[in-house]
């Protein structure tokens, strides 16, 4: 059964420097073990969401509950042990002088004993396939590699929730693939809840569920299939439609009928083959 692990109720937030509300009366639940993508154009409130979920800012109104603990100034340090965050800029979250030092940073902060640290550093780096890079310095690493190290740093603390705050938007296609593949495999191994804040459609397509933000409010919520069926509306919201949806739309415009609105490329090819070509 779906168990709610993060819950937002009536959350509103305003930056002191701005007049408009970055988030207006937002409420939703995030379920244990799911991969949720929060998408929206720049300024839709999605990045603000990330800050609130980690206690880096507090809402003016409403509550955020993480794993049954209400997020307040007193509870942030406990919450931060359960929630790991990977930020957008690969350089500006890399603290250590080398890869292993950086992964150890979070462990040091939490007073983990040294033997345990050594074990966890090695283990997390193996899981992101960066174990050959223990002694490397960050300026010798690519963006994708740095982000994988950041993920390892988060994993070492054994959180139950991991938030990717636009973690792939500064990466090249290869880097993006590396990071998303790493996250996908991690989710398979462990029951990890992944919250992906992004404007990248391919990233969102990998999620179990998508929440579309617009102008500080939750616009829609649903499975990738349901959301991508929104079609033109997505473009108006400043987003894009996945290629396969564009392709199926074009086929329809050319008079072909298709069973579903949202199909992966593979599904689309198969449907064309079975219902159109093999007659």
């Amino acid at each position, binding site marked *: 059964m779906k168990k709610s692990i993060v819950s937002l109720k009536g959350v509103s937030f305003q930056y002191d420097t701005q007049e408009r509300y970055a988030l207006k009366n937002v409420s939703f639940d995030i379920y244990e073990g799911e991969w949720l993508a929060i998408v929206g154009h720049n300024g839709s409130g999605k990045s603000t969401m990330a800050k609130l979920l980690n206690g880096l800012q507090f809402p003016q109104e409403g509550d955020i509950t993480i794993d049954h603990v209400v997020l307040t100034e007193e509870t942030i340090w406990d919450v*931060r042990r359960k929630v790991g*965050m990977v*930020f957008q800029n690969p350089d500006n979250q890399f603290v250590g*002088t080398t890869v292993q030092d950086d992964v150890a940073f979070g462990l*040091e902060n939490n007073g983990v004993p*040294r033997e345990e640290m050594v074990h966890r550093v090695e283990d997390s780096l193996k899981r992101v396939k960066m174990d050959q890079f223990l002694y490397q310095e960050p300026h010798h690493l690519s963006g994708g590699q740095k982000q994988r190290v950041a993920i390892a740093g988060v994993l070492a603390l054994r959180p139950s929730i991991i938030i990717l705050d636009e973690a792939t938007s500064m990466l090249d296609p290869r880097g993006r693939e590396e990071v998303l593949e790493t996250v996908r495999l991690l989710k398979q191994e462990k029951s990890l809840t992944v919250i992906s804040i992004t404007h990248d459609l391919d990233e969102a397509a990998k999620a179990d569920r998508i929440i579309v933000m617009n102008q500080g409010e939750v616009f829609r919520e649903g499975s990738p299939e349901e959301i991508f069926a929104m079609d033109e509306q997505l473009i108006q919201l400043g987003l894009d439609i996945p290629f396969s949806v564009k392709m199926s739309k074009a086929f329809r415009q050319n008079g072909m009928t298709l069973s579903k609105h949202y199909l992966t490329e593979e599904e689309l090819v198969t449907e064309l083959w079975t219902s159109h070509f093999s007659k």
Partner: protein
Amino acid sequence: MMEKMIFGRYVPADSTIHKMDPRSKLLIIFLFVCIIFFANNWITYVLIGFYTFYMLGMSKIPVRFLYGGLKPVIWLVLFTLVLQLFFTKQGDLLFKWGPLEIYEEGVRQGIFISLRFFFLILMTSLLTLTTSPIEITDGMETLLNPLKKVRFPVHEMALMMSISLRFIPTLMQETDKIMKAQIARGVEFDSGPIKERVKAVIPLLIPLFVSAFKRAEELAIAMEARGYRGGEGRTKYRQLSWRPVDTLQILLLVVLTVLLIILRS
């Protein structure tokens, strides 16, 4: 582009000195700088010389890297030498040419002081050539730890140093990028009148500063998100290990000290 090991001048090699604990190296350098002033005759300087060259030999550092440390100071040394030669008027008069007089003591003092500079530079270079900047930071942090009792921010300083070290290559890469972008907009960094060249620094410095502040902010947020709340309750991943060779080297220096005290005039 800036992958040269110019910062800290650390040259990796497989030597005893390289493998020593940075704490012992720091202590040795510190002590050496103090005891070198005990030397005041030929035999004491020869002893210091032997020690210095012995240590340099043990470090397996190629000579050309040592030269790099001496080059900037050569003029200072020559200047001091000249001062001593012409202004120390003691002992026998060796040479006279008009108002210029060179005395025996002047030559002696000149040579001694130059040698002192020479050995000091070589030994301190030894520290930076055989110890990576992060090791030096670790060593200093551990040595200064007792000062925590008097509220000296040892941990904070060490963290500031290690973060700065980590960002130096990154900032250098960024400087390169900004320079290129501004050159593409018509800025000339290496030609034109002095006044123009000084002004040219502004489109380089301001973006760097702005970006550095942004980095600092984002880094602080990331550190907080990873549970950083100051030095309380932190454990340490990097470990230093004091080995017998460290004790031996310290003892060697102590022996040298004793000899210097006995043999000085």
